[in-house]
C-alpha cells in the first residue's frame, strides 16, 4: 500500500462499472463526447404533462444492479468481495416497489418494510456477494458522494483494504412527481448553465466503484474529499455560494492542492435556475475563469443518489481519455465569467473535481488524480 506524506494510506479507484439511460460506461462516454443524450420525453409518471426523464432498460432493477457489481468483480484482482466493505448511496431505496404495492392495493399489507428501506440495495448485494460488512448512506443527491468521502477516509486510516462504493437509484413516482411539485422539472432535455435553461431531468442509474489501498495498472487516485452544509434553506442553495465554495475548498485542502491545479470541474449542473447560478458563481469566485467546466447531466439527467458515483466514473474516464467533455445543449452560458466548454478539449488531465449538492444544503466535492 502507498502512504501520503503524513502517513495516510492512499485510496485508488481500480475498477468501476455503470448503467444509466446512456448505457454502460463505454456508451456513456461516447454519448458525452458526442452530445448524444439519453433523456427521453415521457408522460409515464405525469399523465397530463410531458417531462424529460432518463430511463434505463431493465426487467428487474436489482438484476441490473447485480450485473453492474459483478462486472466490477470480474475486472478486479479479487476472487470475491468477502474482504470488501460495501457502502451504498441511495435516496430512493425500495420506494419503487412500495409504490407499486400501495397504488395497486391501496394499503400497506403487501409492503415488506425491509424491501422499502434505503438499505434494500445493500442487502440485495450482500445476499449475492457476501461483503465483509455493508452500510448505506442517504443524503439525497449527495448520497454516493458521501459514500465516496467515507470510503476514502476509511482507507486513509487503514480500516479497510477494499471498499466497493455503489450509487443506485431507480425512477419512481415519488421523485418525479415531487420534483414536479417543486417546479424544477424541464419538459425538454435539460440545458445546464445555459441562460435559457428551464429545469432538470430526473433519471435513474447504477454506478459501482472499487476503491483499494494498492495501486493497479489502471488506477486513478481519489485524492481529495470535502463537505459542508449551507445552513440556508431546505431546497434552495445559498446565493452567496458559501457552502459550495467551502466543500470545494475542503476537498482541495484534503488533496493539498490549489484551485489552479484543477484541470476540469464535472459540475453538479442540474439545469435548474437556482443550482446553476450558484454553482457557476462559486466556481467563478474560487477558480476564476480558466478552469474548464461542464455538466454531464444533459446526457444522463440527474440520477439523484447515484449521481456522484456516475460522475466519479465519468471523471476517471476523462482522466484516462485526456479529453475534457464540452457542455451538451449549451447555446449561451448565463455566467460568462466561467469557462463552460463549448468544444471537447484534448489535453493532459491531472486533476478533476466533481461536485454534488443536495436538499438540506448538503454539499460534497471529490477530487480525482491521474497516477
Amino acid at each position: 500500500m502507498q502512504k501520503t506524506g503524513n502517513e495516510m494510506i492512499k485510496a485508488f479507484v481500480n475498477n468501476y462499472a455503470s448503467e444509466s439511460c446512456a448505457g454502460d460506461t463505454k456508451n456513456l462516454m461516447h454519448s458525452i463526447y458526442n452530445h448524444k443524450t439519453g433523456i427521453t420525453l415521457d408522460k409515464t409518471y405525469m399523465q397530463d404533462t410531458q417531462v424529460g426523464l432518463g430511463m434505463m432498460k431493465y426487467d428487474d432493477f436489482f438484476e441490473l444492479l447485480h450485473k453492474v457489481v459483478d462486472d466490477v468483480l470480474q475486472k478486479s484482482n479479487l476472487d470475491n468481495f468477502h474482504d470488501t466493505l460495501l457502502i451504498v448511496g441511495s435516496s430512493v431505496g425500495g420506494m419503487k416497489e412500495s409504490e407499486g404495492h400501495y397504488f395497486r392495493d391501496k394499503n400497506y399489507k403487501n409492503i415488506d418494510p425491509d424491501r422499502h428501506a434505503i438499505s434494500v440495495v445493500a442487502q440485495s448485494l450482500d445476499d449475492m456477494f457476501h461483503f465483509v460488512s455493508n452500510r448505506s448512506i442517504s443524503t439525497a443527491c449527495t448520497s454516493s458522494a458521501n459514500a465516496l468521502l467515507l470510503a476514502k477516509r476509511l482507507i486513509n486510516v487503514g480500516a479497510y483494504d477494499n471498499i466497493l462504493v455503489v450509487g443506485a437509484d431507480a425512477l419512481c413516482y415519488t421523485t418525479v412527481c415531487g420534483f414536479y411539485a417543486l417546479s424544477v422539472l424541464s419538459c425538454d432535455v435539460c440545458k445546464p448553465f445555459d441562460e435559457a435553461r428551464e429545469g432538470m431531468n430526473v433519471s435513474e442509474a447504477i454506478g459501482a466503484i472499487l476503491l483499494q489501498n494498492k495501486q493497479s495498472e489502471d488506477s486513478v487516485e481519489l485524492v481529495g474529499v470535502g463537505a459542508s452544509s449551507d445552513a440556508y434553506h431546505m431546497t434552495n442553495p445559498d446565493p452567496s455560494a458559501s457552502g459550495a465554495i467551502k466543500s470545494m475548498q475542503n476537498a482541495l485542502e484534503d488533496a493539498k492542492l490549489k484551485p489552479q491545479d484543477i484541470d476540469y470541474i464535472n459540475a453538479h449542473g442540474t439545469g435548474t435556475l437556482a443550482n446553476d447560478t450558484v454553482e457557476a458563481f462559486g466556481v467563478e469566485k474560487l477558480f476564476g475563469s480558466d478552469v474548464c467546466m461542464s455538466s454531464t447531466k444533459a446526457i444522463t439527467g440527474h440520477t439523484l443518489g447515484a449521481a456522484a458515483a456516475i460522475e466519479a466514473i465519468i471523471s476517471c474516464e476523462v482522466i484516462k481519455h485526456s479529453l475534457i467533455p464540452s457542455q451538451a445543449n449549451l447555446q449561451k452560458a448565463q455566467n460568462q465569467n466561467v469557462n463552460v466548454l463549448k468544444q471537447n478539449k484534448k489535453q493532459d488531465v491531472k486533476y478533476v473535481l466533481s461536485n454534488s449538492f443536495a436538499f438540506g444544503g448538503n454539499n460534497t466535492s471529490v477530487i480525482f488524480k491521474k497516477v
Partner: protein
Amino acid sequence: MAKRVVLEIKSGYKVYGVKKIEDLQEKRIVPKMIIRRRLTRNAKIMLYLADMCGFEGGKIVYASAFGELQSTVGITDAILNKTQISPTLFQNSVYNSAPSYFSLLNGDKDEIITISSGMNSSKDALKTAALQSLVSGEDVLCVATECLDIENIEDVNSCTKYLEAGAGVVLRVIAEKEDAKELGDYKEDGVIESLNDLMQVVNLYNDGTKKIALYL
C-alpha cells in the same frame, strides 16, 4: 479486522413514546413558529436530543432506517388521489431532513452524514461518527430517530411498541485505550431494532461508563 478506536462519551440522551413523544420543548428550542410548523417529527426529536446533549454545532452523523415516513405517505397519497403534492412535503421527505433543520436553525455549516442501514442504522452511525471524529479530532453528534406513527402502520408493524423513539450521544475519539467498554448484543424493549446500539451507548453513559470501544 477493521480498525479499533476508543471514544469518550461526553453526553447522551434517549426518548420514546408509544404513539407520540409528548414534550419535545419545541417552543423553547424553535421559537419561530414559521419554521417550527415545517419541522418533521424526526426533526423535532432530533433537535430535542441535540439540545439535551448540549450540542450546539459541528459534525453530525444522523441515522434512521425508515426516514420521513409521514412525508412519504403524504406524497404517495397525493399521487394516488391525484391531488397536488405539497412542496414542503417533498422537501421534507429526504432522509437528511432532520439534521438539515438542525443545520438551518443553528447556522451549522459543518459536515452532515445520514446513515440508513436498516436495523443496523445506529450501529453504522456510531462507526461513522467514530471515523468522523478520528479524522477531524472533533466532537461529533451521533443521533438516530424513528417515527412510525402513520395511519394503518399496524398493516406492517407488529413488534415495535414505541412508534416514536430516538437516542443521541456526543462522542470524541481519544488516545487512551484502557478500560473502554465493548458494545455487545443489546435489545431495548419495545423500541425498533435500528436504535438498539445507540440506546445501549446512552444506557452505558447513564450507568457511569464514559469510554466505549468499537471497530470502524
